[in-house]
């Protein structure tokens, strides 16, 4: 166990190593919140409602989208895994008594700790400044469920992007695939447009994929638009278990194919 904690710790230290980078990131995140606020304000000046969303609800939605993008979604796992496979860096993990999946997850956790450190203050400031525009859930149980869903999302996103990254075992040109996955997943999870603003037939597709539960559902919970349904926990858990085994399987297969090119 100690080794994975050490990996997480090293990830934090690595991220903190660049002070200017930290500062600029914080500033740009703050700006992105401001931009989205003014963006939706100007759109709503035309009328009062888009679908079932009022101005406040729309702003809340995108504020949570941004928060989720900052903290929960870790698409850089795919890039990082893909890079390590392509440049042979993964060899040093294969050689040593360390489990690659757990190793990447520990790095991911380290990154999360780092992101909480630098983004939480900004998020709190933004939530305070925009407090009149943010709709939120009414009771603590919903918040608790939301927290649980967010944690499940975090784990499942990691597994999904780990699997996406593993594709690099089979092709040296995986970057296009990663990017496509990111775009598609982002759309399917409601990251671009709230899912309930999309045509009915679309929900057939989005319902059969896990992404809606990872993002759209917890975010809707947090902004008080939906109530708790046991499916919100069970479905992600099942997907997590399935994805975990798939990740292990693909990793083993990929490793067999891995010729250590790049060394």
């Amino acid at each position: 166990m100690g080794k994975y904690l050490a990996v997480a710790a090293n990830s934090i230290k690595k991220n903190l190593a660049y002070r200017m980078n930290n500062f600029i990131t914080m500033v740009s995140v703050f700006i992105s919140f401001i931009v989205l606020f003014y963006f939706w304000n100007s759109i709503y000046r035309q009328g009062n409602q888009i679908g079932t969303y009022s101005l406040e609800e729309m702003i809340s939605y995108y504020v949570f989208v941004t928060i989720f993008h900052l903290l929960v979604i870790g698409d850089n796992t795919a890039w990082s895994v893909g890079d390590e496979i392509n440049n042979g860096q993964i060899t040093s993990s294969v050689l040593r008594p360390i489990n690659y999946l757990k190793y990447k997850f520990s790095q991911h956790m380290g990154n999360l700790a780092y992101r909480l450190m630098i983004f939480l203050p900004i998020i709190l400031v933004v939530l305070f400044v925009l407090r009149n525009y943010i709709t939120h859930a009414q009771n603590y149980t919903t918040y608790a469920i939301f927290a649980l869903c967010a944690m499940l999302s975090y784990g499942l996103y990691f597994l999904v992007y780990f699997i996406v990254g593993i594709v690099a075992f089979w092709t040296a040109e995986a970057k296009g695939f990663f990017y496509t996955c990111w775009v598609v997943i982002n759309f399917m999870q409601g990251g671009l447009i709230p899912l309930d603003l999309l045509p009915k037939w679309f929900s057939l597709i989005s319902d059969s994929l896990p992404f809606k539960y990872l993002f759209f559902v917890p975010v809707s919970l947090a902004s008080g638009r939906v109530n708790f349904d046991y499916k919100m926990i069970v479905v992600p858990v099942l997907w997590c278990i399935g994805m975990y085994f798939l990740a292990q399987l693909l990793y083993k297969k990929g490793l067999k194919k891995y010729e250590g090119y790049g060394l």
Partner: protein
Amino acid sequence: MKKPIIEVKKLCKTYEYVEKNPGIKHSLRNLFAREKKQKEAVKDVSFKIEEGELVGFLGPNGAGKTTTLKMLAGILTPTSGEVEVSGYEPIKRQKEYQMQFAFVMGQKMQLWWDLPPMESFLLNKKIYEVNDEDFEKNLSEMIELLDVGGIVNKQVRQLSLGERMKCELIAALLHSPKVLFLDEPTIGLDVVAQKKIRDFIKKYNQERKTTIILTSHYMEDIAQLCKRIVIIDMGKIIYDGSLEDLISKYVPNKKITIYFEKEVSREDVEQFGALVEFDFLKLVFEIPREKVKDVVGKILSSNLEVKDLEIDEEDIESIIRNIFTK
């Protein structure tokens, strides 16, 4: 008789690859139909290594040395044949086996780029479950031997190649492995750093009796460190034995290149030794090893105006070529 710590029997490795011909036409064709070719990187390689030996794997680029080493380390699956190191089958990648060996690759790093080496050392301490006492002892010993005390707390990306290599070695040896694989450890390093690393490896092997396999295409690495060498060319072992025997048998001569200020004539210089190249201002001699010092002394103390002088070791390619043609 004690069982050898490394035993390899009829080891083979064949790679599949896609041929990429130059030109747009071929690139387009590759999009639709790719020709898969096979390369036999390692063919029927067999050898045994006893515990504590320091063996050199020598051979030109692409000979199969690194591929063999990777199969010993469990990175690559052999196409056929048997490999056993320290009683384990490397490709099974059992934790117990991985705790016992280390692999240092000259061109690949296990140190975290943005952090000081010390952080990577501490991570390895956890990964290999090294206790505090051993860790401190090993670390301070190696830091002193390699003289890196001042840099272990600097970011790895700020270190020179030589310093990085030394830290890579330390990181690999913190857990006192029984077997050490070194793949081109001195590649790209300056002469001083090369010597420091060679001295370190030699001392480490003598004191700890660690079994070490070293690959290199620098003759000097092998000459300094290995009593026994294995020459691999085109996937096959073409020599396995003592270095001394090899040298005296196949490389009896050294090449001396001399540049003159003023043109010299053939008669002036023929007395010194066998002339291989004559270009009035530049000459190349082939002199038996034992006589080199003598001949050079004579040339320099003669009245010929020498501008510059080079003493060359025959490179591996020529040595191997020699072995094949003789």
